[in-house]
């Protein structure tokens, strides 16, 4: 459809081929062992320097930047909690117009937004849905730590059933206050948007390079794309920060968080818990490792 310039990405075959240079660098106010920081680090490593990024309000906005400093090497801008989709559309539209009118060089510039589960899955889902209906090249990454982690862990639409949060504390009368089932954001967005050719779920560290390649695939396929990442949160899930990667791995291996891609409507399981090793591990192994 479009003759717009593209960036040729190579598939990252193994951890030794991961680009060495950081474009999101040390000096961010994230928690020890923050998995979402790894998500940030990974997507921009994959995308490369010809990229503009917006970050919706949330943990990874407030934690990431501490005014007048920044950990970002690429251009980055804050956007409001519910504006993940629209910020990406705005930038993509602006860049396309400027290129068409010859006001800037005609080259591929990636537009990436990251929003948390509260921003992308709840408040901003309308804007993201609209963005996925557009014909702009943009990627929206929902980093899902299953809570409003910035404000000290409140339940969101992506919080799992039964979880303790500051909005859903156990009490003497009700031991379970979180009685909503986790929203299937990736699935919902995948089925409803014919223009969106690529939706994926991923985890920043497991399996290694899977997430990085999904980012590249999304950017290469073009048009509006969406990736839902699974980000264990030491603060909210209450585990020792050193186990961040393990918690992600366990969540995937027990089948609570399936990894898949939806490419042009076809669902491909990229890592099937049922077919790995001895099959799915008991969910208990995953849950018992959280506070």
């Amino acid at each position, binding site marked *: 459809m479009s003759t717009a310039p593209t960036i040729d990405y190579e598939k990252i075959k193994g*951890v030794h081929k*991961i680009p*060495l*240079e*950081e*474009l*999101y*660098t*040390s*000096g*961010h*106010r*994230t*928690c*020890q*062992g*923050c*998995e979402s*920081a*790894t998500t940030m*680090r990974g997507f921009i490593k994959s995308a490369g320097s010809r990229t503009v990024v917006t970050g919706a309000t949330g*943990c990874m906005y*407030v*934690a990431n*930047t*501490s*005014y*007048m*400093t*920044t*950990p*970002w*090497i*690429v251009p*980055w801008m804050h956007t409001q909690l519910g504006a993940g989709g629209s910020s990406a559309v705005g930038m993509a539209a602006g860049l396309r117009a400027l290129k068409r009118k010859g006001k800037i060089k005609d080259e591929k510039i990636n537009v990436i937004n990251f929003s948390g589960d509260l921003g992308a899955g709840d408040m901003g889902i309308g804007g993201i849905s609209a963005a996925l209906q557009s014909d702009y090249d943009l990627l929206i990454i929902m980093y899902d730590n299953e809570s409003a982690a*910035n*404000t*000290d862990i409140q339940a969101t639409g992506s919080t799992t059933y039964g979880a*303790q949060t500051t909005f859903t504390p156990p009490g003497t009368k009700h031991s379970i206050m979180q009685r909503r089932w986790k929203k299937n954001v990736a699935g919902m967005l995948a089925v409803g948007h014919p223009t969106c050719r690529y939706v994926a779920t991923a985890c920043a*560290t497991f399996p*290694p*390079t*899977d997430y990085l*390649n999904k980012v590249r695939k999304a950017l290469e396929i073009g048009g509006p794309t969406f990736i839902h990442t699974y980000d264990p949160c*030491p*603060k*909210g899930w*209450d*585990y*020792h*920060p*050193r186990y*961040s*990667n*393990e*918690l992600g791995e366990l969540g995937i291996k027990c089948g609570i968080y399936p990894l898949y891609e939806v490419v042009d409507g076809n669902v491909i399981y*990229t890592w099937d818990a049922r077919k790995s090793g001895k099959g799915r591990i008991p969910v208990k192994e995953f849950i018992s*490792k*959280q*506070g």
Partner: protein
Amino acid sequence: MIKRVEVNYRGIFQKNLGKKIGSDIVMIASRMGQKAFSNGRYSDSPERNGIPCKYFAFVSPDLAEEELEAECGAKLEIDEANISVVLDDTMCKGVEPWGWHGIRPINERVVKDGCLLVFSRKSHDELLKFIGKKPYSYRLAILDGDASLAGLWVNKDDLTHERTLGGIAAIDPSVISIEAVEAYLLEKTKDKRRADAARAAYESLRQEAKPPRVQTVTPNEGIDWMHEIPVLPKWFEMQEGAVVPAVKRGFEMGPRGQTRNPGFKRGTTKTQRPAVRFDLCTKCTLCWAECPDECFDPTTDGFYDIDYQYCVGCGKCAQVCPVKECIVMVDELRFEDDSSPWEHWKKDSQDYIQWVEDKKGKDRVSYPVVTGKGMTVTQGEVMPEGKIVPVRRTEEVEV
């Protein structure tokens, strides 16, 4: 008269502990007929795991509550503290809670004849190797013990809270008296063990206690503070539209070859740092790939150096390292500086191995997954040079 107590604690891990100490000082001082209130440093919120934070309690025997509030409450940070409690001794290396704050000495707010009360296994002299000099004398008190690190939901009830109250009572009974502390704890918890813990801490800090745990620090004791305290720019010196220049792009192989955020280093977040045996390294890349703080610098010979200025000590690298004894988390206070371990190793590998084994010692602390559930200490071993012992297999997944 106002007595100000400051509690330095580790974000999230000690959030509930810090608040509890502040609250109980108010409760006890009030029962003693004093006016008191408590608050946290608001800008620490939202808190991050490990980042140095503060909680305060203010006590006055004679001021009206409103006056006390006006003197102490209308500020986000206090100017002086009569007692500065340090719930994790690694904060003695300085604290930097956010950008443009600079790494500040832990005793920055301690007044003349005031007291720095630290939970530590170290001696006074060992701690003073990290603490900045003051122009006047103050006291350094040590409550023997490890840092109590729990989580947001899991409470580690190891009596640190009660011991702190007892310690404060020993240092300055006019803030809270030990009798009032005991009476309060007994009444509130009906648990004599808690009152006893406060009393034991109190006794350990009394003048006649042996060995003496409170020592006067004279003006020439401590170190010359090497970290600059930034001067904030004026309004017309800042770029408009809340714009900040990005970190300058730059990467080359080798120590500190990656550009990093110069305005906010994160080193004071850590209680432990990864110590690396390069000779055991299989160059698997996992420490580098999984580091959420981008602290590892790839070197031309395939290793990964560490920029300790930015390492927050999360321990992920040690966790994912597939080789026994290759990366081990070691108490931060065993290290004097942040120099490059790889350069040291390259200069003299034998000397480095000996040095790093010396730092590692024999104790290996392993944590359960859930925070605050205690820890187990095992004995480590010295691996002969180049002896690679796999401890876990990383699952090979072809995507």
